[in-house]
């Protein structure tokens, strides 16, 4: 059964949130999801761009409670 892991990268500067996401993805199974939380506004565009480039799936992204979030599904 797939799972969703949450990574709180709030307070981390670019490219910290992306690096934390990548490190987490390496430990997960295909189909698992990761939600990354970030106070770096660039994350909201950088992470989906990275996913499109390397072949993972952006499930959703947005802003809530003063931070940005992106949910990524490991696709390979």
């Amino acid at each position, binding site marked *: 059964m797939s799972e969703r892991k949450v990574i709180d990268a709030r307070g981390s500067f670019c*490219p910290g949130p*992306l*690096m934390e996401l990548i490190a987490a993805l*390496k430990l997960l199974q295909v189909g698992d999801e990761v939600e990354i939380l970030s106070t770096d506004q660039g994350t909201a565009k950088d992470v989906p761009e*990275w996913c499109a480039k*390397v072949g993972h799936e952006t499930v959703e992204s947005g802003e809530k409670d003063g931070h940005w979030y992106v949910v990524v599904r490991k696709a390979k």
Partner: protein
Amino acid sequence: MTALPLFIMLSSADRDKLQLASMIASVAAVSERPVHVFVSMGAIKVFDKNASGNDRYGDSAFNAELCDKNAPDPIEMFSQGKMLGDMTMWACSMVLDVLGWEESHLVEDLFDGQIGLTKFLSDAEEGQLIAM
């Protein structure tokens, strides 16, 4: 399609330049783009394993802000790029010779060896070269 390799040549101990170089290198490396970093001239002193903290960097226009905000250290980001992506780092053999340093003088587990400028430039013909 295979991404065009990125070759980054570092020659300065300026924190601003090294900060940006490490960001470029690490992000490219984890984006399935091979990255090769060549460290020469004053930049090599930053990678002295006996240097510590922010003292290893030369001053720069943005250094104070980077330190105040605890921005990630460039050496840490180069290490992350190597760990998570496709990155190799080379020390310039000429500057090691000038300083009388062996590779063992450099930050551990970061460099893949030392090479000369001619070899690096030759390899860089197959990709995109950035000098900072």
